């Protein structure tokens, strides 16, 4: 699930960033996987961590809490920002509504 920058279009040219692919629905069940992925990758991430939301259709409250906790952990560990990429229209609506731009760098 977690890969170093591969041939993914969106990540082309950002090979220095660490990418976490979020999956279809970010819910409590997914949280453990993501957390695991992060812990494995955090060391290599540098100052920016990218989470790919391509293919993500829904985020549950616990999922969002996890993303935010992940962001907090990353920043506290000296990271600069966490970027969310490939947001679908629906997820974008969600991000707007919750003003997620305050906590993440959001790239469509």
């Amino acid at each position: 699930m977690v890969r170093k920058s591969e041939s993914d279009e969106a990540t082309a040219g950002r090979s220095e960033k660490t990418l976490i692919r979020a999956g279809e629905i970010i819910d409590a069940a997914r949280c453990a996987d993501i957390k695991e992925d992060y812990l494995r990758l955090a060391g290599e991430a540098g100052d920016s961590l990218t989470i790919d939301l391509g293919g993500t259709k829904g985020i549950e409250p616990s999922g969002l809490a996890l993303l935010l906790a992940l962001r907090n952990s990353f920043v506290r560990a000296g990271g600069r920002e966490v970027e969310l990429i490939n947001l679908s229209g629906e997820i974008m609506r969600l991000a707007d509504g919750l003003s997620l731009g305050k906590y993440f760098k959001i790239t469509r």
Partner: protein
Amino acid sequence: MATGQDKETLLTFVAEAREHLDGIEGDLMTIEQGGAEIDAELVNRVFRAVHTIKGGAGFLGLDRIKELAHAMENVMNRVRKQELVPSPGIISPLLDSADVLNKLIDAIGSDVEYDIGEQLRVLEMAAAAGLGEKSGPRAAGSGPRLMVEDKREQVPEAARISSSELISRFAVSELELEKVIADGSDIFVLEYDLVPDLEKHGKTLLDFIDELNRIGKILDSNIDIESVGDLDLDSGRLQLPLSVLFSTVLDRELLLSFTGLDSGKILLLSSGEDTGPLPAAFIPEPLEPEPEEINAEMAAETVPAVKAGDGPSPLAKAVAEEASLRVNVKTLDALMSLAGELVLTRNQHLQMVASSDQHGLKLVSQRLNMVTADLQEAVMSTRMQTIGRVFNRFKRLVHDSARKYNKEINLVIEGEEVELDKSIIEAIGDPLTHLVRNAVDHGIELPQERVRAGKPAAGTLYLGASYEGGQVIIIIEDDGAGIRPEKIRDKAVELGLFSRAQLDLMTEQEIIKLVFLPGLTTASQVTELSGRGVGMDVVLSNLSKIGGLINIDTQVGQGTVISIKLPLTLAIIPCLIVSVENERYAIPQVNMQEMVRIPAAQVKERIERIGQALVLRFRGRLLPLITLREALGLDKQHFYEDLEKDGQYPAQRQMIEDRRGVVRDELGRPIGDEEQSLKDKRAQGEDRRQSPTGAYYILVLWAGELQYGLIIDRVLDSEEVVVKPLGAHLRGCKVYAGAAVQGDGKVAMILDIAGLSSIMNLTALPEKLSMAVSAADKMKKADSRSFLLARNSPREQLAVPMAFVSRIEKIDTGQIKITGGRRNMQYMNGSLPLVGIEEVANVSPLDESSGYCYVIVVRYGVRDVGVLVTRVFDIEDVSAAIDEFTHRQPGIQGSAIIRDEITLVVDLHEVIATILPEWAAVSKSAVADEKKARVLVVEDSSFFRKKITGFIEEAGYETFVARDGLEALDILASQQVDVVLTDIEMPNLDGLELARRIRASDKFGQLPIIAITSVAGESAEAKGLAAGINDYLVKLEREKIIEKIKSHLSG
């Protein structure tokens, strides 16, 4: 929470929208009356109401309601900004739109579609009106420009100040805030903890965002990022606190309901419609003064719905269709504590029963009594609603109709606070609407007519409610033209309901009451408002259904007062418990007027049988009677009361009822089946047994306009009974209104008083009966006479005025002798000349075959004469008018219908005078010697006038006649009169007043006055004497009258 998903929310919205719309009408009309002087508070209230409806509808996806409300809001907004003067041109479309909104709201959930395009267009025009006119109070520049400026001004200064402190937490521009506030939205801060709040409802974040966006706008949101923590925390305790800066048109209450948040989590920052300053600082508590009350209000809304009564009628729909009810929190608390008391009492009761403590039981039962009474009252109070709900609807109705018909009407409403049970409030909507419409449409005249009649141009319509003895009285009073009885009379004849003659016998009050008959509507022109054929009869029947009574009091030219008496509730009603055949029945006291006990000794005199019907002579009326036993088809059983043992026991003797033998033919064979005919006879026959306590108990009842008596066996008790609806199998049973379970577990059926009368076909009869009685009473005063009924042959009935009859003798035909060609008989040591009526009149001759006949002895002049008839069979008081044309012939004065038979009224004096002309001469000569005195006969009835002048002239006097006291005075002024003979009851000037005036006169003050009347008696006589009357005589006592005249003249 999409449409239909959350029924509770929808219901809340509907209930609230209705409430808002209820208020809007009255407010709009007040605004219109105020014209350019705008009551800002009122305008804001309407704006807010529409605004809230818009918001709720938007949230629920009710697009048409939203659009319409939005258009209304636009107009109101311009009124609020004083860009539009609330003229009728502006307010009318708003009122109409409110109606459409009502309809749309009614139609929620149904498939009914309404086209609001036209309404939107009208509103748009109304809203645009001010722009074109440039006549708004503040219109200075061009319209659109002005609006922009206005909008800026409209933004409260305070909103900008407060944003610094409160809104600084959020990333939102001042400009955006201003825009939101100017749109009329409120700004809230919503506090969520997203994880529990959303997961509790199984919602995703996207659902959550979309929902919020549907009911308003998320201006900004902050996640408390610190509280979220980091991945080191146990993921099981994830927190996601979110505060949302939110603008919405919903009010706080709806928002609470939609979001499902606790009231403490919703903070109102600014109110779009408040023009006052915002709070200077954010107070992390709701702005409403008492949070407890808000919670309570919410709780009240979720109180289980109280089922509405019967199906609502279309007119009362708006009031009737509510399936849920708002209950005051205090009432709920009281209910709760009473429920607690009840449990406590139950526990005590159990204890007392276990310990068989009699004294304790008594105390507990007393306590139970008190608690139950309180509980009952408290529960009832939740169902009580103010009549203002109904009354306020009429503001609009009157306003609209008045304008439509160019009438000016001031509506005065009083007693709006009077409370009635919900079901009654729902049921009176229709009848009241009809009555109010009647008053506006037919009652109050056009302004010019009113001015011509010397009344103020504006009519007044008064609607009032008040309590009176456990009932509510509603008064609908107008100062209009009143109801003209002749119109009703004409209509009744036209419809063939009554004949002219019948109507002539009725009092005006009785005629007015005819409006309650089906088909009678007084408007000569049918109008859209009220003259639609359905009318007062429906009003009456609707009111009767809920135990209401209605009365009309009208004065031509002065106005009409309609009073309605209603019970407070239908769920628990005070009843009289009676028994028939040991079965118990409950009779609602609201229908009862009084209870009459006819002692056994008076039963014969006071209770009569007319045809098949029983009637009671009661307060000068004939009261139709229903025997409850017969109405219910109960078998006749006989109970004897054993006074010693204090109980009732069924009678053992079965056959005693009928002592009559079997009908047999000439040969002595029984006719028909002996057994059967005996049974038949028994079934038809009157019961001749009287129980030892054979008194009749009669309840005098009102069923709408109809009064009747109900014969029952025993009166048991008066009780408040709880009405239980009847099972489906008894629905069709018109005589029962419900059932009541009594203390001992027995069921008493509650009688439907109106239903009972209708199954006994009492509806039409009593009208006529009571009319006949009242007419009879009238006649009795003036013209009632006793007749002796006689026959010469079975086919022909004759009537002889009793006034002429001295004696009646039954004689053997052998006693009749013929002397000198004339019949006579020996009688009282002399000879009595006998005459036959057939000798003069063309009637059946005397039948002597039976061997006997009757002699009616008549005093004629100074001697007696006998008139022969075959049979004399009764004396009857007759009030029917005598037809002096159809059967008039020598010896027959005319005819009358007596006992359903054409009866010839014999003129005895004519008969005798024709047969014995020389006797008449003698009779005259008896007075001929005396000076030919002049007698003034004052009498209004032509019958009596003729009779009296007839025998006075026969006695040799000269007569003058006058039809009333005034005419008499005229004659007295111009003629020489020696004696005055006057009737008492007369139109214009009655006998007593005539006497007073005669006595007061210098010229003829000493005249002897003889009163001739049918109203005899000491008190009448005393009155007469006081007025100056010398003698009191009974009409047609010929001899006495002549004697008196003589004595006065000689004296």
